[in-house]
């Protein structure tokens, strides 16, 4: 299948304008005749649903949570980037574009990234008008901070709760449309199948998580905004319920899955404390501005940190990266932590942790200054671990945080299935192989507020036959859902879904986590089918499908993760280079930096599902870098 991204011609600054002009419009009087199904109600889904409803379309939203307001966008702490240049420090759309392409290690699509940078300024205007309580200066204007190594101050924030406030803004806009009668909201309702009629996305089949009722919903377009697949690793900073079922069902129905191996690992998370661990909590990266990272120089040194003299400590980031030191980028800091722990010098339970020490900062700046900067983070750390960072160093360890890969979409955010649009973290489009801090919120809202309301209209304006749920395709999809549910319930084995999920996650983290090699990936590819086999022969799900059954929900999601994990490893194995979040140990510079191979791998790897047990087929979308010249990242 030739992959045509449908990038508009012309200079990059004019592509989006041009595309907007080319897009067909739906007659305002006809908009109410079109029904759009939006799955997922985070930043991307809620903003898209609200905007589409404002335009006059009939919209239905679906989310597994009990309210649209609970989507995991809510947990984003840091902020949202926008090229407003309110600080007069030389920021511009061009600079945000450049930073994002470079930060993505030259594996993103230039045209999409430029549009993202252009739209960033509209997002801030929109959110401020909604009443999002952004941080402000005493003059009443918006405050900014710098973030993620950017040389300009372009991050807007609302305390440490930026994601929460932006999501509530979008959620409120959505609820307004519920009152207006334009949106029907289906909370506690999980999409379990995508329905295609004549090769086009025409509906979804859902399971009501309270009653178990399986129902069909027909529409003229389907929008997936269901987030990333980080929970394939079992432990991640994602919410417990985050899952890949919607995108995986779409993938099995023909949507190509792009760059599944691009996963972002965040260096500063609270380490796991035991087998029972259910999720990992992120600590803001800003802590590395004042904290120093170290481990004991000697392996097996069991002394409390305070009793280890400086001479017997290894401040390894400062040693390995003298220029950037403790501020080395996320992927580099994460890998360095893994290296020292692999050497047996890790601290805390299982030796999977490193110290982040504020001792010197307290001596230099005093407790009051540091508490002003990090007080809430110190508190959060103490609440979770019981340790007071004023007394003992924090322990941190990397954790899976974000997935850059996702369903392949063209410039219009349409997948390879006509009528299926994919937004936010669920698509692959804007972050390349690595996402910069404060860019996830920006992308979710750009897609939802400002891109898809236009592009869906173009799809609808081109016309298609009316379809309702009486079509046979819906019966088939309902039967598939019912059969899968019945199968999950009938295995009657001994192991729980969590147990099998944890086994999968442990394998993936070891073999396809921070560092990957041909041997480790082949090991994972041999192991995953065995876990899948165990899943389908030894799983136990109590209860029935006709009731609120959280074990059944979990089992269905794990079943899909078990397939996606294999694709992730295959993609990682085929990509014989290192770039961004994908680090192949065979491909590194003598200094241990990621070594790209632009001649062979400057493309998007988009995989086609060929059926269970069949090898997926690779399709390529070549990437051209006309505006940001290819270059090697260096942080020495």
């Amino acid at each position, binding site marked *: 299948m030739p992959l045509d991204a449908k990038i508009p011609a012309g200079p990059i600054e004019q592509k989006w304008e041009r595309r907007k002009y080319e897009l067909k419009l739906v007659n305002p009087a006809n908009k109410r005749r079109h029904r759009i199904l939006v799955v997922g109600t985070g930043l991307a889904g809620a903003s898209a649903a609200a905007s589409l409803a404002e335009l006059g379309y009939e919209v239905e939203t679906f989310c597994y949570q*009990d309210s649209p307001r609970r989507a995991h966008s809510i947990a984003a702490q840091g902020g949202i980037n926008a090229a407003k240049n309110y600080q007069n420090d030389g920021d511009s759309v061009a600079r945000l574009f450049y930073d994002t392409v470079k930060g993505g290690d030259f594996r993103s699509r230039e045209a999409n990234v430029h549009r993202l940078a252009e739209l960033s300024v509209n997002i801030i205007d929109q959110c401020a008008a909604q009443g999002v309580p952004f941080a402000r200066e005493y003059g009443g204007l918006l405050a900014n901070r710098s973030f993620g190594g950017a040389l300009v101050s372009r991050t807007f924030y609302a305390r440490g709760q930026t994601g929460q406030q932006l999501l*509530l803004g979008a959620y409120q806009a959505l609820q307004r449309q519920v009152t207006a009668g334009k949106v*029907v909201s289906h909370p506690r309702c999980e999409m379990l199948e995508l329905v295609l009629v004549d090769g086009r996305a025409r509906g979804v089949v859902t399971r009501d998580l309270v009653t178990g009722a399986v129902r*069909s919903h027909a529409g003229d377009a389907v929008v997936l905004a269901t987030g990333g697949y980080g929970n394939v690793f079992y432990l991640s900073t994602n919410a*417990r319920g985050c899952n890949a079922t919607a995108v995986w069902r779409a993938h099995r129905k023909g949507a190509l899955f792009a760059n599944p191996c691009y996963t972002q690992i965040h260096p500063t998370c609270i380490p796991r404390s035991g087998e029972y661990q259910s999720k990992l909590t992120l600590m803001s990266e800003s802590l590395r501005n004042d904290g120093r990272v170290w481990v004991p120089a000697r392996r097996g040194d069991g002394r409390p940190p305070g009793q280890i003299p400086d001479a017997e400590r290894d401040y390894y980031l400062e040693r390995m990266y003298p220029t950037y030191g403790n501020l080395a980028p996320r992927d580099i800091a994460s890998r360095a932590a893994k290296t020292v722990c692999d050497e047996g010098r890790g601290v805390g339970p299982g030796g999977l942790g490193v110290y982040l020490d504020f001792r010197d900062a307290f001596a230099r700046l005093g407790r009051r200054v540091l508490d002003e900067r990090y007080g809430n983070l110190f508190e959060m750390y103490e609440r979770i671990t019981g340790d007071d960072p004023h007394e003992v160093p924090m322990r941190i360890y990397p954790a899976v945080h974000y997935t850059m890969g996702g369903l392949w979409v063209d410039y219009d955010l349409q997948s390879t299935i006509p009528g299926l649009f994919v937004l936010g973290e669920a698509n692959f489009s804007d972050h390349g192989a690595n996402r910069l801090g404060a860019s996830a919120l920006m992308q979710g809202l750009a897609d939802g507020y400002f891109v898809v309301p236009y592009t869906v209209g173009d799809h609808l304006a081109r016309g298609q036959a009316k379809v309702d749920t009486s079509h046979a395709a819906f019966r088939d999809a309902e039967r598939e859902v019912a059969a899968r549910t019945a199968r999950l319930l009938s295995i009657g084995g001994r192991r729980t879904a969590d147990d099998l999920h944890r086994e999968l996650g442990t394998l993936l983290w070891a073999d396809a986590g921070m560092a990957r090699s041909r041997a480790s990936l082949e090991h994972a590819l041999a192991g995953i089918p065995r876990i899948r086999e165990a899943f389908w022969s030894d799983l136990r799900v109590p209860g029935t499908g006709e009731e609120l059954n959280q074990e059944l929900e979990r089992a269905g999601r794990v079943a899909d993760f078990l397939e996606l994990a294999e694709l992730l490893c295959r993609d990682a194995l085929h990509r014989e280079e290192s770039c961004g979040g994908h680090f192949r140990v065979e491909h590194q510079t003598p200094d241990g930096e990621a070594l790209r191979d632009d001649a062979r791998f400057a493309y998007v790897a988009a995989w086609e599902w060929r059926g269970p047990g069949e090898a997926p087929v690779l399709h390529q979308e070549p990437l051209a870098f006309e505006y940001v010249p290819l270059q090697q990242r260096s942080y020495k």
Partner: protein
Amino acid sequence: MRIVLEIWRQRDPWADGRFVRYEVGDVNEHMSFLEMLDVLNQALVRRGEMPVAFDSDCREGICGTCGFLVNGEAHGPLRNATICQTHMRHFHDGDVLRLEPWRAAAFPVLRDLVVDRGALDRIVAAGGYVSVRTGGAPDANALPVPKTDADRAMEAAACIGCGACVAACPNASAALFTGAKITHLSLLPQGQPERPLRVRSMTEQARAEGFGHCTSIGECAAVCPAGIQLEVIARMNRDFLRAAFSRAAGEPLTVLPVTSPMRRYEAQPPGARETADPAEEPAER
């Protein structure tokens, strides 16, 4: 340590519930409360029993999904923390803990510790927003907001919508929740045009949902994991009085019909629930 749990078990909204006693041995002090329940549930599933249903998602205290009463206290004994952020080091070996769902007429129990909080979504839908369409917003810096107002608006906007305030209130009032959203928007210039209609619609929706009135007891603020202050209720009341005498007093309210799943199920006896009901399709408008 060993923890004894007495947990409310209720199969569905129609069934009678009862407390069932469980014991969890081998509780690690670093576990979160919900991880302790995970351990219990894994054991139950292995025995072929239905696990205890409880809601949770982010498990870092921000999504507002989790929450139940621990010995009568919403989110348990730790102040300013959700139950997912409460760790077992705050309990003692041999503790007997009684877990029950939020209790309020407007929050029907769906199963065990899971309740339906759709009423809170409808309170927001009744007016908890600024009516601004996508696009066409003026430059964000065109409208300065005094820093103190923005900070206070943020404090109110921090509400996570968990419903602990309702559960803690002897009147099952949603005044803290409703007042927080009204306060957030009425402190900002963007929220002024709709201020009178907002307070009238949202409070009317809360009444229609079956939440009680506020009698200034203050339990809500005491248990609030987001630290929302009682002051927001005073602000709501003041806005309500002002609205009654404003020019907007006669405007029609934007109140939604109360459509909790409970009521949906009441029309359908449990036996008839397995199959999709075409009558439930959203009506053509």
